[in-house]
C-alpha cells in the first residue's frame, strides 16, 4: 500500500490530480455541464496514460465536479449538478444575507471530509460493502424511492401539503414519455421529442435557474447582499468551528453518502437530500433549515462527496456502476484492459491502490483549490453588476440545457418549466418537491412494476413488498420521516398555546 502511495505522489500524478480537481470544479460549477460530461470529456486523453494515472485523472475530475456544483447552488440558487440540490436550500439564503463566503468554505470542508470517508471506505471495506449493492432488488429500490419521496415532508418550507402536491406533480412529469416497463406512451401530446421523457438536467436548470433569472430581471434590488464581500475572506476558522460543533451531522452524512453511493442509480442527489433531511430531523433548530442553516449545507455537501468513493465500490468489485460517471470510468477501465471483479483487489492491487491513493490526494487537494476558487467565485458574483450577471446566467441556462444532448427541444422544455416554476412559486409551490418527484419517479415505478411482476410470478405479491427485511427497515424510516414534522408542528402549536 505504501508503494501505491508513493506512486500516487509522483509529480506527474500529483499534477494530474491538481488540474483534474480544478477542471472538474469549473465544469461542475456550470449548470448543465455535469460530472458525467466532465469525466466523459477526459476519457480519450487517459488512453495514452498508464492505467493508474488515467484513473487518478478521472477520479480527480469526478471529485471536483461533484464539489463544483455547490458554487452555483450557493451563489445563484441553481445546483450545478443534481447532487447539489439540497445545498441550494440553505446555501442561497446564506449568500443572500452576505454569508456566501462562509457557505462556500463550509461546502468545501464538508466535501473534503465526505470525499475522504468515501475513499477510505473504498480502500479498506470495498469487498464486504459491495454485497450491499447485491442485496437491493426491485422492491428495495421501490421502497428506497418512496423513502426519498417522503423527504418532501421534511423539505417543504412551511407548507407540507403544497410540498406533497408538488411531489405528485413531479411524479406526473416523470410519467411523461414511454413507460419504464410495458412501453405505454404517456402524456406526450403526440410529440416524438417527449417519448424519452422530461430530461432531468434541463428540468433542473429550468425549475431552479429560470425563476432566479426572472427575479433578477423583474426586481430592481441587488442579487446578493454586498456588505461582507470585502471584509471576511475564507472564514476558515469560523467554518472549522461550525464543522466541529456539527461533528455528528458530518459523520452521519459521510456514512449515509457512502452507503447510498454504493447503491446503483441512487447517487449524489438522493444522498444529499437524505442527509439534509436527517440533519433537519435531528436538529434542535429545524425551523432554521431553508433559511440559511449551516448544518444543511454541511449535510448535503458531505454526503454527496462521499458518494464518489462509495460509488466506486460496486464499480470496481462487482463491475456494476453506481452512477453515470462510474459507468464511463468502468468503460475506461475495460479499454485499459482491467477486468473488474473481486479479484481486482488481489490480482491488480498496484493499480487499484494507486488509484484509491490518488483519489484521496485529489480529495485533499480540493481544500486549497476549492477555498481559493470559491472565494473568487463569491467575490466575482457579488461585485458583478446585475446587468452583466443576467446575460451570463441566461447564456448558462441555454447552453446547459442544450449541451447535454445537443437538442434545442430541451432548451424549450427548460424555459417552459422555468416559467411555470416562477408562476407557481408565487402561490407557494417550491421547486424541490417537484424535482424530487421527477428524479425518484422512474426509480420507484421501475422497482414497483418489476417487483409486482416477480411477486405475481411467485404467487404472492404482498409478501414481495412487505416481508423483505431491508424493505421493512426502509418502510419504518419512511413512516418516521413522514410523522416527525407533524409531531414537531403539533408540539410547537401546543407550546404556543401554553405561552
Amino acid at each position: 500500500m505504501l508503494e501505491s502511495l508513493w506512486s500516487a505522489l509522483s509529480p506527474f500524478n500529483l499534477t494530474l490530480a491538481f488540474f483534474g480537481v480544478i477542471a472538474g470544479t469549473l465544469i461542475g460549477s456550470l449548470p448543465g455541464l455535469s460530472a458525467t460530461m466532465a469525466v466523459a470529456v477526459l476519457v480519450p486523453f487517459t488512453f495514452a496514460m498508464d492505467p493508474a494515472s488515467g484513473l487518478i485523472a478521472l477520479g480527480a475530475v469526478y471529485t471536483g465536479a461533484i464539489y463544483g456544483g455547490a458554487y452555483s447552488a450557493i451563489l445563484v440558487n441553481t445546483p450545478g449538478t443534481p447532487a447539489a440540490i439540497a445545498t441550494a436550500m440553505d446555501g442561497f439564503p446564506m449568500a443572500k444575507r452576505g454569508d456566501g463566503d462562509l457557505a462556500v468554505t463550509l461546502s468545501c470542508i464538508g466535501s473534503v471530509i465526505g470525499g475522504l470517508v468515501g475513499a477510505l471506505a473504498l480502500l479498506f471495506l470495498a469487498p464486504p460493502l459491495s454485497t450491499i449493492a447485491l442485496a437491493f432488488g426491485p422492491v428495495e429500490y421501490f421502497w428506497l424511492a418512496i423513502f426519498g419521496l417522503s423527504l418532501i415532508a421534511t423539505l417543504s418550507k412551511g407548507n407540507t401539503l403544497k410540498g406533497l402536491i408538488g411531489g405528485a406533480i413531479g411524479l406526473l412529469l416523470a410519467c411523461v414519455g414511454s413507460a419504464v416497463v410495458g412501453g405505454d406512451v404517456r402524456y406526450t401530446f403526440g410529440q416524438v421529442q417527449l417519448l424519452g421523457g422530461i430530461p432531468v438536467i434541463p428540468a433542473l436548470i429550468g425549475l431552479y435557474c429560470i425563476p432566479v433569472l426572472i427575479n433578477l430581471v423583474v426586481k430592481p434590488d441587488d442579487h446578493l447582499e454586498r456588505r461582507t464581500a470585502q471584509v471576511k475572506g475564507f472564514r476558515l476558522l469560523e467554518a472549522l468551528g461550525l464543522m466541529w460543533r456539527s461533528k455528528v451531522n458530518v459523520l452521519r452524512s459521510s456514512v449515509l453518502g457512502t452507503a447510498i453511493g454504493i447503491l446503483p442509480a441512487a447517487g449524489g442527489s438522493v444522498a444529499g437530500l437524505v442527509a439534509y433531511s436527517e440533519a433537519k430531523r435531528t436538529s434542535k433548530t429545524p425551523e432554521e433549515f431553508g433559511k440559511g442553516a449551516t448544518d444543511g449545507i454541511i449535510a448535503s455537501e458531505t454526503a454527496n462527496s462521499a458518494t464518489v468513493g462509495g460509488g466506486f465500490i460496486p464499480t470496481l468489485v462487482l463491475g456494476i456502476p453506481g452512477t453515470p460517471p462510474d459507468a464511463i470510468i468502468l468503460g475506461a477501465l475495460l479499454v485499459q484492459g482491467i477486468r473488474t471483479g473481486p479479484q481486482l483487489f488481489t490480482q491488480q492491487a498496484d493499480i487499484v491502490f494507486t488509484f484509491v491513493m490518488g483519489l484521496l490526494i485529489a480529495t485533499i487537494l480540493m481544500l486549497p483549490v476549492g477555498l481559493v476558487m470559491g472565494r473568487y467565485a463569491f467575490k466575482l458574483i457579488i461585485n458583478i453588476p446585475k446587468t452583466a450577471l443576467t446575460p451570463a446566467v441566461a447564456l448558462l441556462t441555454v447552453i446547459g440545457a442544450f449541451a447535454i444532448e445537443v437538442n434545442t427541444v430541451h432548451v424549450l422544455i427548460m424555459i417552459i418549466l422555468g416559467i411555470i416554476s416562477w408562476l407557481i412559486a408565487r402561490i407557494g409551490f417550491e421547486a424541490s418537491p417537484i424535482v424530487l418527484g421527477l428524479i425518484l419517479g422512474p426509480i420507484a415505478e421501475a422497482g414497483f412494476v418489476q417487483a409486482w411482476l416477480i411477486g405475481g410470478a411467485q404467487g404472492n405479491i404482498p409478501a414481495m413488498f412487505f416481508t423483505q427485511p431491508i424493505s421493512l427497515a426502509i418502510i419504518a424510516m419512511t413512516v418516521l420521516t413522514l410523522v416527525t414534522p407533524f409531531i414537531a408542528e403539533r408540539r410547537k402549536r401546543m407550546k404556543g398555546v401554553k405561552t
Partner: protein
Amino acid sequence: MSGQGASRSIAPDLAGALLAVCLGAYAIYETKDMSDLGAVFPTAAGTLCILGGVALTLLAFKNRSRPSDLTLERPDWPRMVALSVVLLAWAVLLKPLGFIISSLVGMTAVVWLTWRGAATVKAVVVHAVALAILMVGFYSLMVFVLRIAVP
C-alpha cells in the same frame, strides 16, 4: 397583496388547489388508453393531486382568519412577459440563426430588460465587451474543450 400579519388572502391557495385538481383529473383521464401496470403511477400521482387540492381548499377556508406566511409582491409583469418571450425566441432561433448570433441577440435583449439606469456610452461599451468575452469564452469551452456540436 398579503403579507406577514395581514389578513389572509385565500386566493393563492385556491389557485393552487384548482391547478392540482385539474392536473390530477387530466392525468387520470389520460390513463384510459394505458395498460394496467402503465397506469398505476399516473393514477396514483393524479389521485394525490386531487386529494391534495381538495385538502388545500378546505384548509384555506379553515385557516383564513390566521395571518398569512406568504408574501406576494406585485411583479413587473411587462418585464416578466418580455423576458419569457426573449428566452423562448432564443430557444426557437438557436438552430436557424446559429449559436453565436442567437446568443448575442438573446443576451443583448436580457441586458436591455435588466437595465434601469442611464445608458451612458461608457456603460454600453463595457457591457458590449463583457458580452463578447462571455460569448468567446463559452463558445471556446463548448467547441474546443467539450467538443459539443453547436449549431
